[in-house]
């Protein structure tokens, strides 16, 4: 009952917030719940700026077009005694409203193309990770390191997500956004991702890194990022991949280089030991046991 009321209250609050965003989207902060995040890479910030730029262009055009239309709807109505004119074309007007959008689009195309060119430049990476999508988990393999592991939906979410689980998702931390084993990368390093899949299509997305790339069986897709801030960044699979498509999140931990090295040391060889049956425990359990 209480929760119902809370939901309704926040609903009302959010709907006002939503309306406010319509008008003030520019000043609204990069709120995870309302707008695209600005992210933590140079390119995610550029993407965000492009998004806001085209948004404002649309708002501008909208204000003009809807403004004229609303004015006409108010002034040119029969109930106000308006008499219909009978013009049916105006070459000048038509040339103007064909030319102006062309110019706007041309101006818009330049920064949009510049960002694309940077986005595709994955030369000279500091490190490479092979990401493989499976139904329904991710596998990460660090190239030139003996590190590889699966990343599954965290246990707490697994329990809560079942039909009629009786667990309120609001009580679960990072519901559907947590994994047992995150991908860990050092801050400031240029990380090249080689993305593929082993069964059906998947898509690896982390909004804060502005990376979304399809994982396709038989094809290795390449992309890159350089995270500029330490933190935990969460994303999701974004290509329909079967019944548990909604349950294969992505978590990227960006850490200081020292912490990364320490993490790497603990993980090295773990998967191999597991594969060789040296331990019946999972790599994680092995790790926990301090082996």
């Amino acid at each position, binding site marked *: 009952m209480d929760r119902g009321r809370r939901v309704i209250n926040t609903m009302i609050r959010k709907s006002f917030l939503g309306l406010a965003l319509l008008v003030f989207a520019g000043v609204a902060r990069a709120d995870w719940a309302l707008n695209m995040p600005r992210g933590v890479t140079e390119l995610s910030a550029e993407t965000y700026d492009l998004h806001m730029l085209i948004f404002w262009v649309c708002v501008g055009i909208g204000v003009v077009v809807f403004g004229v239309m609303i004015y006409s709807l108010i002034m040119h109505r029969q109930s106000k005694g308006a008499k219909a004119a009978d013009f049916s074309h*105006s070459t000048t007007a038509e040339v103007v409203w064909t030319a102006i959008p062309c110019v706007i689009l041309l101006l818009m195309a330049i920064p949009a193309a510049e960002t694309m060119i940077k986005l595709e430049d994955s030369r000279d990476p500091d490190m490479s990770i092979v990401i493989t999508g499976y139904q329904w988990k991710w596998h990460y393999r660090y190239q030139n390191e003996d590190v590889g592991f699966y990343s599954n939906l965290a246990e707490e979410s697994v329990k809560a997500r079942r039909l009629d689980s009786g667990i309120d998702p609001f009580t679960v931390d990072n*519901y559907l956004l947590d994994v047992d084993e995150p991908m860990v990368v050092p801050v400031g390093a240029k990380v090249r991702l080689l993305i593929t899949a082993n069964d059906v299509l998947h898509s690896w997305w982390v909004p804060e890194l502005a990376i979304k790339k399809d994982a396709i069986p038989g094809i290795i897709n390449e992309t890159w990022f350089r995270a500029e801030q330490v933190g935990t960044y969460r994303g999701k699979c974004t290509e329909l991949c079967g019944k548990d498509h909604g349950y294969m999140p992505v978590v990227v931990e960006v850490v200081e280089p020292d912490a990364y090295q320490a993490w790497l040391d603990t993980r090295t060889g773990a998967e191999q030991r597991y594969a060789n049956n040296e331990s019946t425990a999972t790599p994680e359990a092995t790790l926990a046991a301090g082996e």
Partner: protein
Amino acid sequence: MASTVADAIKEHDDHHGPAKGIKRWLFTTNHKDIGTLYLIFSLVMFFIGGAMALVIRTELMQPGLQFVHPEFFNSMTTMHALIMVFGAVMPAFVGLANWMIPMMIGAPDMALPRMNNWSFWILPVAFGILLSTLFMPGGAPAGGWTMYPPLILQTGDAFPFLIFSVHLMGLSSIMGAINIIVTILNMRAPKMSLLQMPIFVWMWLITAYLLIAVMPVLAGAVTMLLTDQFFGTSFFQAAGGGDPVMFQHIFWFFGHPEVYIMILPAFGVISEIIPTFARKPLFGHDSMVYAGSSIAFLSFIVWAHHMFTVGMPLSGQLFFMFATMLIAVPTGVKVFNWVGTMWKGSMTFETPMLFSLAFVFLFTIGGFSGLMLAITAADIQYHDTYFVVAHFHYVLVPGSIFALMAGAYYWLPKWTGYMYNETAGKWHFWTSTIFVNLTFFPMHFVGLAGMPRRIPDYSTQFADFNMMASIGAIGFGLSQLIFVYVLLTAKKGEKATDVVWDNPVGLEWTVPSPAPYHTFDTPPGEDVIRSHSHSSH
């Protein structure tokens, strides 16, 4: 002149009335009967697809799984889309085309009446097959309406039935399109020039060519899926040397023109209605034709903007971005022309006009998000999120569906001979408009904030907007019952006059209301055509 033609028609009608009972509908070759069949069929599909949408929205009302399993949820999203696209929107426009095109061009019927009957009666079979998959082992198709392999190959027993029903839908569409083209080009009143044709007829002519061009492409794509599954080919299977991405290219080469197939006839409807209620000729009649043609041409060279995340070469991404942005120009021309038609008019706001105005506003909002989606770098963030869901529902629901509603209200008195219930119509309009925005506007926010589409459950920060969308969806669904009420009481109102509205333009208004079973046994003369065209030619 008009009344003598009408009298002659009435007299003729006495000799050749429709057959009685079920046979009338099964064996009919009359364009008006077939139009009615199409429209009723599409309304039934609209409610079935709508019920599926409500299953989706009910499950998404709150985070956590409350009502359905994820597999069934995926079946619902897949079937909802297939039914709405191929069962509701497309047949509804074909229904309008059947009813109105012969009357608008002064033709006695469609050019190929028996094929017309067949085009329609294939559809109930196709959708009977598609809906029967809900009861098959493995459930209904759950791989999305886009049917991307390899996932779609994991469909259970439903798989071949899905392919077969898509083949049948394509067959129906192609035959319908051929019929429309032949009718327009061969059956048009001899004195009517191409540019004198109403914009609705023009937009359908263009649409029909799009259909003929792309439906075979879809048929080819799904046939390759079929042989991949059952006959050992590897068109799309990486393990056999195939390429899953090739399917996406082929599918969207069909799929992008397909979205214009669903919107160009809507442009046509709106272009008929706004001049009537603004009491002014359509602004830029000819540029409407050129804009529609440009949109159709561009629709063939933008398909890969649905695939910016598959890993295309940079040059490909840039090409598809620029080509996509270009579409904004002719689309903008259309919107400006509608506003230009309203400008200095003498407007009244009957239900068809209200739906048309909402169309212009809300379709334009869908156009704006479309322009945003064209920007490749930003699209990479938007792709496959609720932002896209918001975008295409804005162009399809307050876009195509509102245009269909507008058209239905506009021509209903011509069809039935009675005025519909205007109060109920206005209620239908206002509730639909409020709820459609409540449903789809919040989806922009959750999409931008990171909620992927096609998921049965979501993380908690999206809860409030999803609740709003679900409430909106239920309200929108219930609002459509008012439309059913309007239809059921359609013959209870005042008798409609022959012109129905205040001096509307179009040959359909020169025949009596209700339109007799056979119209234009003799083609209209030059003067009638000239006085009933928005064109200055």
